[in-house]
């Protein structure tokens, strides 16, 4: 027995079985929820030892799986992060019957989760770039469902992710070569530039950000949000792996400055576009870019000093991001088929018919904008405070706040559109009961994390300890 069999190969095999059962969407979603929740429980329960006892039998157990001389390691220290990964997947698959995404979503989504687990387990960590690319490839069928032509957003997503991978692999080799025998500065500059281009393509850094809003516009919001949640996390972990592996790169003051600059650039550009965006799904894309920008700043601050605190803030920021994206995407899925489109003109006065959906969307936007009393606020505050302390020019952090204000303006426009309408229209709750329950729980989560941050923040910061083990 082997940990990779349980958390990588088994879910991959199950996803193949689910593909065969794909016509039974609800059954597959329920089974996937049970399987992923079971895997999370197993990560919590399975004893960490070289032998495990199954009834009368003694089964040898290893945390390392060797394939062609390379290793996939999921050690005891990785268990908390496995719990988080598979619990998140369970929640997403659990709500899938309500969101009604394409029937390939659950089987392929499960395979994606297994592949991303493999990406964080593989040694050397550089190979994770190829595994992430395979995860991208298998995500295409649920982003561009059968029966419809492939949109330009999907093509751009595929192109950028595929072109990004070679840049990362080749720069990884060049940086290793430099570590062995330090040489010309030109060589280092080329390797670093290659690394930057690779990550810019994968993480949608301006000007390679266009695929995110395009994909959000074309595909089902729930499927898109799932990709938006899992992919940047896997790529960010790969990036942190690079910084940890090449200490000279991490300790270079330019690295920290560059990451902070890129983060602020992402926040400002996303904020400006969000302020003028009229489509709710595209707005979700810009909100994600903004959030990735804050993550980049946190990683940059972690490279410059007080590493534990800012790394903790980076990992802690993933929880509100996941919750906001989940609530937002579920609410948008609830509107599918009930409105002509997701443009502001299509949702005028909708709050009177769908008040819970309205509140959910608006609070998710405000939360990702970092509004006080909502889940993201304590984390944003920490990042902006760190940014203002680390740079000599206060204007840098002011720009980050301006970017957030842009998303806030976008949220206000959504709110204004949704509540406008004739006074004669009566308020009524038309949301399906299950959707309403999920959304209410999500909104309560967003509020609770913002209202009593101390209750949650410490456990979020502890995430950095568990996820930190995943960084190779």
């Amino acid at each position, binding site marked *: 027995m082997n940990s990779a069999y349980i958390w990588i190969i088994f879910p991959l095999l199950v996803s193949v079985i689910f593909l065969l059962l*794909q016509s039974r969407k609800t059954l597959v979603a329920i089974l996937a929820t049970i399987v992923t929740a079971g895997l999370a429980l197993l990560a919590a329960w399975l004893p960490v030892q070289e032998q495990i006892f199954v009834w009368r039998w003694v089964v040898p157990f290893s945390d390392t799986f060797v*394939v*062609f*001389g*390379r290793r996939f390691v999921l050690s005891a220290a990785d268990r908390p992060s496995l719990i988080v990964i598979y619990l998140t997947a369970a929640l997403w698959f659990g709500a899938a019957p309500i969101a*009604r*995404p*394409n*029937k*390939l979503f659950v089987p392929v989504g499960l395979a994606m989760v297994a592949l991303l687990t493999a990406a964080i387990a593989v040694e050397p960590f550089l*190979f994770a770039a*190829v*595994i992430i*690319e*395979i995860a991208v*490839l*298998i995500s*295409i*069928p649920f982003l*561009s*469902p*059968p*029966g*419809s*032509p*492939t949109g*330009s957003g*999907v*093509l751009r997503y*595929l*192109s950028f992710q*595929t*072109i990004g*991978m*070679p840049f990362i*692999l*080749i720069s990884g*080799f*060049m940086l290793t*070569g430099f570590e062995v025998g330090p040489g010309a500065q*030109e*060589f280092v500059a*080329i*390797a670093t530039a290659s690394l930057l281009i690779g990550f810019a393509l994968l993480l949608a850094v301006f000007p390679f950000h266009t695929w995110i809003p395009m994909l959000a516009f074309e595909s*089902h919001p729930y499927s898109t949000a799932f990709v938006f949640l899992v992919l940047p996390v896997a790529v960010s972990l790969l990036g942190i792996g690079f910084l940890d592996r090449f200490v000279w790169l991490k300790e270079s003051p330019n690295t920290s400055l560059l990451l902070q600059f890129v983060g602020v650039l992402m926040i400002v550009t996303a904020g400006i576009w969000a302020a003028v965006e009229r489509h709710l799904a595209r707005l979700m894309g810009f909100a994600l870019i903004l959030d990735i920008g804050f993550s980049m700043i946190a990683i940059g601050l972690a490279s410059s000093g007080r590493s534990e605190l800012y790394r903790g803030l980076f990992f802690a920021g993933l929880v509100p991001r996941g919750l906001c994206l989940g609530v937002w995407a579920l609410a948008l899925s609830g509107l599918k088929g009930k409105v002509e489109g997701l443009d502001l003109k299509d949702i005028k006065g909708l709050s009177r018919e769908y008040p819970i959906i309205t509140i959910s969307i608006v609070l998710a936007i405000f939360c990702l904008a970092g509004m006080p009393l909502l889940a993201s606020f304590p984390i944003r505050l920490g990042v902006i405070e760190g940014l203002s302390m680390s740079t000599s020019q206060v204007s840098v952090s002011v720009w980050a706040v301006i970017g957030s204000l842009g998303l806030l303006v976008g949220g206000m426009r959504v709110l204004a559109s949704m509540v406008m309408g004739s006074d004669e229209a009566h308020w009524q709750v038309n949301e399906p009961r299950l959707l309403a329950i999920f959304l209410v729980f999500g909104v309560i989560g967003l509020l609770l994390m913002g209202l009593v941050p101390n209750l949650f923040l410490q456990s979020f910061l502890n995430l950095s300890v568990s996820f930190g083990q995943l960084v190779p």
Partner: protein
Amino acid sequence: MFLDSLAFPAVILVFLTGSILLISWDWRISIFSLSLQYICVFVLVSLKWPMELASVKVIAGWMAGAVLGLALINIPRGDSYQTPLRITDIGFRILSAILAGMFAFTAGAKFINWLPEIEIQQAYGGMILIALGLLHLGLTSHPFRVILGLLTVLSGFEILYAAVESSILITGLLATVTLGLAVVGAYMLTSPTLEETS
């Protein structure tokens, strides 16, 4: 070794096949060029790798071509890819390909200074494919052409990476990516004709 003497002809052939992919509007010619391109990739990769390992590249590439070809046979006629390009368009593409080739020759020579493990023929061949593939991607939004562009970029990268990394796992993973791209391309081409499922 016999294959070493074929390295420079392979570089020239790589440029020709990449350029044909850029201007061809008949999918049969495109698939044929792609399969020729993968033979060149095999020749260039085998400068550093044992032949049996290098053959993975050509097998994966041919399988990718077969998958795309089968998908194209099964889609209805009248697809926009079949529309012949105008003569001005062809002229522009040929000129762009020549410029990309010249850039690749300059960059290839520079590249071996940074990574001396790479042979000059590999550097030229890899950079030509990357430059032509990126050019192809910049000129199209048709799924078949996008996949051809991505396969071209990827095969160029594989030539360069083969010189520095010979792990069997990464070879297998990259072959999976090549085949995966072809399967995704086939899916994109046929998905409008498939039954709606959501």
